[in-house]
């Protein structure tokens, strides 16, 4: 018994050390490929994130220098007792959820419609993708015009339909909805392309088989096709949510200030205001950390999912 264990132990030892050498060699051999990128990413992304976190623990403000003697979570306490922070945080979450759902649903609809077109004749994809290629500075300004009370195309439509005219940007109740609509307009095309890529991987055979069996088209999509698009939806969803957290550019393009109209303040604009206008660096940094955690909260389930299905 004992000799046997010794033997296997020895065998394990030698095979382990061989393995270790192999891994070591591989890691070394591939070093040129990973070391530089890893270093740069480490420095400029994780280094900056870490530095930002450290700043958020200080009470740095103005043009002073941070003192690291007393690190605490005061700024986070301040954030959660600041009504403006809670309001902006709530807006951020509403924007995130509604915008993502709208884009995923509309994108899917468009993708299915276009998919039929592609399977049968030409392609129209580019038209739908066009808004995505526009800069926020352009779309922000264009939507501001479209929402104009007197001349805006939105009010032209509502007037034509006999619904009357509406204050859209000037109404704090619906401004967030208006911004979500504008953002969705820009991102639905992108979502659609992600879905289309997924749809293209589904072979025509499945359609033909279902049709031979006499199944109606919508039932084919509902029962066979859409369930296969889960991965596309997940990856599009993650990207959309991360974009939603960064709506800052869009709002700045619209309003020309870091303080958007009443009802449309989000954490990103608040963070810039606190840090760069009021010079409350530590408070701004703590808002940034909270935003980062929100982004992380979105990404990590996705990464875990990918890990579980052996994609990474």
């Amino acid at each position, binding site marked *: 018994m004992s000799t046997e264990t010794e033997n296997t132990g020895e065998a394990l030892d030698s095979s382990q050390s061989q393995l270790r050498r192999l891994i*070591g*060699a591989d890691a*070394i*051999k591939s*070093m*040129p490929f990973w*070391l*530089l990128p890893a*270093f*740069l990413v480490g*420095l400029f992304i994780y*280094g900056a994130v870490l*530095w930002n976190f450290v*700043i958020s623990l200080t009470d740095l403000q*103005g*043009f*002073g*220098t*941070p003192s690291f003697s007393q690190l605490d979570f005061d700024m986070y306490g301040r954030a959660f007792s600041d009504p*403006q922070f809670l309001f902006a945080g709530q807006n951020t979450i509403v924007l995130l959820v509604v915008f993502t759902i709208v884009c995923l649903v509309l994108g899917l609809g468009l993708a299915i419609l276009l998919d039929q077109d592609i399977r049968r004749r030409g392609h129209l994809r580019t038209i739908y993708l066009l808004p995505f290629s526009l800069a926020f500075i352009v779309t922000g300004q264009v939507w*501001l*015009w479209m*929402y*104009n*009370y*007197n*001349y*805006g195309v939105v009010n032209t439509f509502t007037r034509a339909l006999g619904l009357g*005219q509406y*204050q*859209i*940007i*000037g*109404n*704090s109740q619906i401004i967030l909805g208006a911004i979500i609509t504008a953002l969705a307009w820009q991102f639905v095309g992108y979502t659609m392309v992600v879905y289309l890529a997924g749809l293209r991987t589904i072979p025509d055979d499945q359609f033909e088989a279902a049709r031979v069996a006499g199944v109606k088209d919508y039932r084919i999509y509902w029962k066979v096709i859409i369930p296969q698009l889960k991965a596309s939806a997940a990856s599009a969803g993650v990207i959309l949510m991360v974009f939603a957290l960064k709506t800052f550019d869009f709002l700045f393009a*619209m*309003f*020309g*200030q*870091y*303080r958007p*109209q*009443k009802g449309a*303040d989000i954490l990103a604009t608040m963070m*810039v*205001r606190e840090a*760069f*206008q*009021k*010079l409350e*660096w530590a408070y701004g940094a703590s808002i940034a950390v909270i935003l980062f955690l929100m982004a992380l909260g979105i990404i990590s389930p996705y990464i875990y999912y990918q890990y579980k299905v052996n994609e990474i």
Partner: protein
Amino acid sequence: MSNSAEGPDRERRSYLKAIAAASVFGTGALAGCSGDGGSGSDGGSDGSSGDGSSDGSDGGGSGSTDQSSPTYNSTALEVLHPWTGGGGQNAINAVIEGFHEEYPDIETDIRGVGATANVQLNQMVNQRLANQDPPAAFNAWPGAHLTQFMQSSRQLLGDITESVWQHDDMEGAFVDEAKELSRFDGRYVTVPIGSHRLNNLFFNLDVIESAGVTPEDVESPGDLIPLMEEVEANTDAVGMAQSMVNANTQLQLWAAIHLGMHGYQSYMDLINGEGDLQSVTESVEMTSRYAEFFNEDASTVSPPSANQKIMNGEAGFYHQGNWMAGGYNANDLTYGEDWGWIAFPGTSNMYTLHMDAFVYPNNNPAPEKAIRWHRYVGSKEAQVNFNKHKGSIPLRTDVSMEEFGPFLTETMEDFRNIEYRPPTLAHGLAVAPTTLVNLREVFSSNFMGPYEVEATAQGIIDTI
């Protein structure tokens, strides 16, 4: 790394070398980063080492010996300003051109950082100063706006009392308000380049005549209301044009109304933190009555677009700074025929003071060049060239107004003879930047429709 000996192929070794070089560079960058944020005490040495690395050689020195000028260092003169379009751009270009003629051997790097109300420029300057990487000169509002720099534990702004203000007796030529707003604890840190008047009420003369009203008779903000009613009753125009795409214009209008209703002293008490809730409530209330006459699309139009409504005859009155006159000139509208203006009701004995200035940061990357820049900015030539394009007025008392046209000449005369010159609130002269941001928040949250008078008034009092 230690394993590298076991596979001595050349390719890999050269890779390693490259990586080693890169990591040395990276470590240097890291050290630079932590130096920036970490230690403030060695700010001076940081600044100067930045010069050396950014330019490399000091060959520029040979250029500087040509003239009587002292030893310039090799760093180009970097100036940041907010004028990226329209009259402002022509104005700064005229100054740059003149500066090049005056100092042909100074290499410049003059950059416009544009956006409404200096939002982006101020942010960039804050960032650069916080990182101890100041430009040679930057544009800002003088007065309270600069207190954020003066109150810092680090010396952020340089003293140009001797080098600029006492050179050629510049100090004697400037008006007192300009000097007061440029000086902190007896030392000058900035040179104003021009001033706009802010308490203007513009109107379209066609609209006014069709409505049958005479704005010249209006004596208080309340008196304007019947006139706006007449405009709306007798023409297609709205009573008052307004831009509410952000809250600053609302803040500005309220400040004008407060001055008009309660006078100079009440306003000065207010900005000094001794405001009276009752009087503020009254002026906020009055502002909300004005709002009934705004164009309905106010929340989506910018200040120039709101001005367009005056030009098109879609609105009767418009309160803005006198920079809006540039728009009328650009559209060939004649002063006195197509458009006119009065001082905002109740403020005919005041000139609400707006000012732009160039600031001299401490640890200046190009100190001698920056001194030349500030001297030039304060010169007669620069003040005339800048202001005639910008539609503002020079702050020197010894310049001739020949080139300025009737509107600006009138403004200049008012400026010289008027009783009070209250500093503007919405454009940074009256309160510190943090207070200004908070005031805008008060208006954003409570006064962009629906108009909550009590909350706004209380917010104003609490903020200042």
